[in-house]
C-alpha cells in the first residue's frame, strides 16, 4: 500500500508539472522515474553569490513519501557546483527544517521544496559554509534525514 501511495503521488505531481509548468528559475531535468528526480534551479535576482550559476538538486522519494519528506541534496558536477550557504554543506547536504520530519508536512511537494530552497539562496548574503563543514563532510555517513540538525537560525 505504501509503495502505491508514493507512485501515485509522484505521478500526480509529475502530471501537474506537465500541465501547469514550474515557477521561473526551476526546471525539471529528469522526472521520468517515480523514485528519483533532478531539478536545476537558479536565483531570480542578482545576488552576487549565485546569479551566474545553475545548481542541481536531487530528489529521492522513499516509499513512505509523502508521509515522510523526500531526500533532497545538491549534486556536485563541473557545471553544477554546490552553492555557498551557511546551511549547505560542501557535500550537498542541506540543513533545512522543511526536509526533516519535524518541519515536513505531507501537503508539501517537490515543487514547494524547490521554491523554498530557491528563496533560501536568494535571501542569503553570507559567502560561507556551515560551521564544522570540513569535519562533517569527512565523518558523516548518515543519510541526510537521519542527521539530527538543530534548526536554530530563522534568519536565512
Amino acid at each position: 500500500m505504501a509503495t502505491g501511495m508514493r507512485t501515485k503521488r509522484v505521478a500526480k505531481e509529475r502530471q501537474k508539472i506537465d500541465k501547469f509548468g514550474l515557477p521561473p528559475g526551476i526546471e525539471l531535468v529528469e522526472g521520468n522515474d517515480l523514485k528519483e528526480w533532478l531539478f536545476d534551479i537558479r536565483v531570480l535576482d542578482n545576488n552576487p553569490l549565485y546569479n551566474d550559476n545553475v545548481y542541481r538538486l536531487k530528489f529521492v522519494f522513499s516509499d513512505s513519501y509523502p508521509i515522510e519528506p523526500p531526500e533532497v541534496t545538491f549534486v556536485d558536477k563541473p557545471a553544477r557546483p554546490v552553492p555557498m550557504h551557511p546551511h549547505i554543506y560542501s557535500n550537498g547536504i542541506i540543513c533545512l527544517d522543511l526536509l526533516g520530519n519535524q518541519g515536513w508536512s505531507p501537503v508539501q511537494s517537490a515543487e514547494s521544496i524547490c521554491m523554498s530552497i530557491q528563496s533560501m539562496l536568494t535571501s542569503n548574503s553570507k559567502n560561507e559554509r556551515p560551521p564544522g563543514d570540513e569535519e562533517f563532510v569527512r565523518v558523516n555517513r548518515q543519510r541526510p534525514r537521519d542527521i539530527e540538525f538543530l534548526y536554530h537560525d530563522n534568519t536565512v
Partner: protein
Amino acid sequence: MDSEEEYMSPISTDDDEIMQDDSGDELSGPDDFDEDDFDEPDPDFGLSAKDMDKKKTAAHAVSFKVLEPSDIRRQQDDMMNDVNLILDLTKEDAAIMLRYFRWNKERLLEDYMDRPEKVLEAAGLNSSSSSQPKLQAVPGFVCDICCEDEEGLQTFAMKCGHRYCVNCYRQYLTQKIQDEGESARIQCPSDGCGRILDSRSLDLLVTPELTDRYNELLNRTYVEDKDTFKWCPAPDCPNAIECGVKKKDLDKIVPTVECLCGNRFCFGCANPDHQPAPCDLVKRWLKKCADDSETANWISAHTKECPKCSSTIEKNGGCNHMTCRKCKYEFCWMCMGLWSEHGTSWYNCNRYEEKSGAEARDAQTRSRTSLERYLHYYNRYANHEQSAKLDKDIAQKTEKKMVQLQTTSGMSWIEVQYLNSASQALQTCRQTLKWTYAFAFYLAKTNLTEIFEDNQKDLEMAVENLSEMFEKPINELSDPKLKVDIMDKTSYCNKRRIILLEDTAENLAKAKWTFNADLMNGSTLLLNKH
C-alpha cells in the same frame, strides 16, 4: 528433579497472574477517579518549603521524591480534572491545554481568564464548533496527500477542517507515534496548521496498540515537560524523581538522588552519582578523558621529547642512538644525554649521572608536568572505578561462600548482612573517591585544598582497609572478632565519606573553591603558581 519442577511451575504461574491482576487494577484506576480520588487532599506538587527544611539535614544532601508510574498518572488526572471543572473544557481539551502550558496550571488559568480565544488558538484548539470527530465520505473529494479521488472515500478532518483520506491520516499518525515517538504535539498534517491532535480523534483513527503507545509517550512528556521531574536513568526503571534543584544552582550544589530501584544518580545531569564534583566539572572531565586519556597514556609510555627541540619522538626499534628528524640533534634514548659523550663504539648506556643527560631529563620533566599532572589524577580516578568493580566481584563471591557458611556454621541470614553493607559502603565510597580526583584536577591550590586532600586521604585509607578485609579467607570471615572489625570499618568509611562531602558541599555552596578553569564559561584561566 522432575517432580520438583512440576511442583514449582504452577506456583510461578499463579504469581504471574496475581501480578497481572494488580497492574490491571492500576490501569483502570484513572477511569473511576471521579469517585475514588476526589476527596484526596491536593496532590503534593512541588514540595512545600516546610518539607524542604525538614528533610534538609546536610549540605551535600538534597530533598527529593520518587514517583512511581501510578503517581505520575494520578497527578496528570488530578490536574486535568481541576482544569476541566474550572474552565468548562472537555478533559481532552484540558489535557492539550495543560501540555501546551507545560503543566503549569496557574499560568494556564491566568492566561485563559485573560484571553481565552488567543490561548485556545495558541494551544491548537482554535475554532469553537464542538461537534464530535467522525469519519465521513465527501462527494468530489481529492486527498491532497495521496491524490486519491475514489468515490465514497472515507475521510477525516479535525476541527481545523483540513481533510485527508483515512489511510493517509492513519499512516501519518503511525509515522509520528511509532517512528518519531511524538505524542503531545502531533499537529494536523496540513502545512503550518498548528492544530494538535486530541486523543478522541486518535482513538477513531488508529489501532488500540498505537493508542497504548501514544498514551505511554504522553505519560513521558509529562515528566519531560516539568523541570522539577526527571526519569530514573536505570534501564527498565519506570520511576521518576521530583527534585527542586534548579539548573542555575548546579555550580553550588551536587544533587544526588536515589531511586526506589537503588540507582543513585545526579538530578542535574543524570550521570551516576558524582559527588563532590559539580556537574559542569564532570562534563568537562568526561570529555577530557574521552579525548585525551588514551592518547596521553600512550604518549607518556612510548615517547620522549627531543632534548633540543622538544619534538615528540617515538622509538620504534633499533638502538639507543637517536637522531632527531627535525633538528638533527643526536642523543641517547636511555639517558637523554648528548650522544657524542658516549664515545663512538659505546652502544650501551650506563652514563645516567652525566650532566648533559641530567639537564635534558629535567627539561623533559618540566615539559611533561601538565601531562603527568593529568595522568596522576586520571589514573587514580580510573583506579577507583576499576577497584569498585573488583570489590563488587569479590563481595559477590564472598556472599556465595557465606551462604555455604550459613549452613555449616549455623549463622543466620541476618547475621551475614554485615558483608552486604560493607560491600555497599565500598561501592559508594569508591564512587565518591573517584570523583574527588576529577574535582582535585580542576582545583587550584588554596588553604582549603589541604583540608580537602586530608579528607581524601583519610577516606582512601579507610576504604583500602575495608577493601582488604574482603580478601581474607572465608573461614576467617566468620570469626566474630573479624565481623565486628568489618562493621566498625564500614561505619568509619561511611563517616569519612560524609565528612568529605559535607566539607566540599559547604564550600561549594559558598563559592569558596578556586578552580583553575572557569567552569561556567568554559574558558581556561591561568593558574596561579603555588
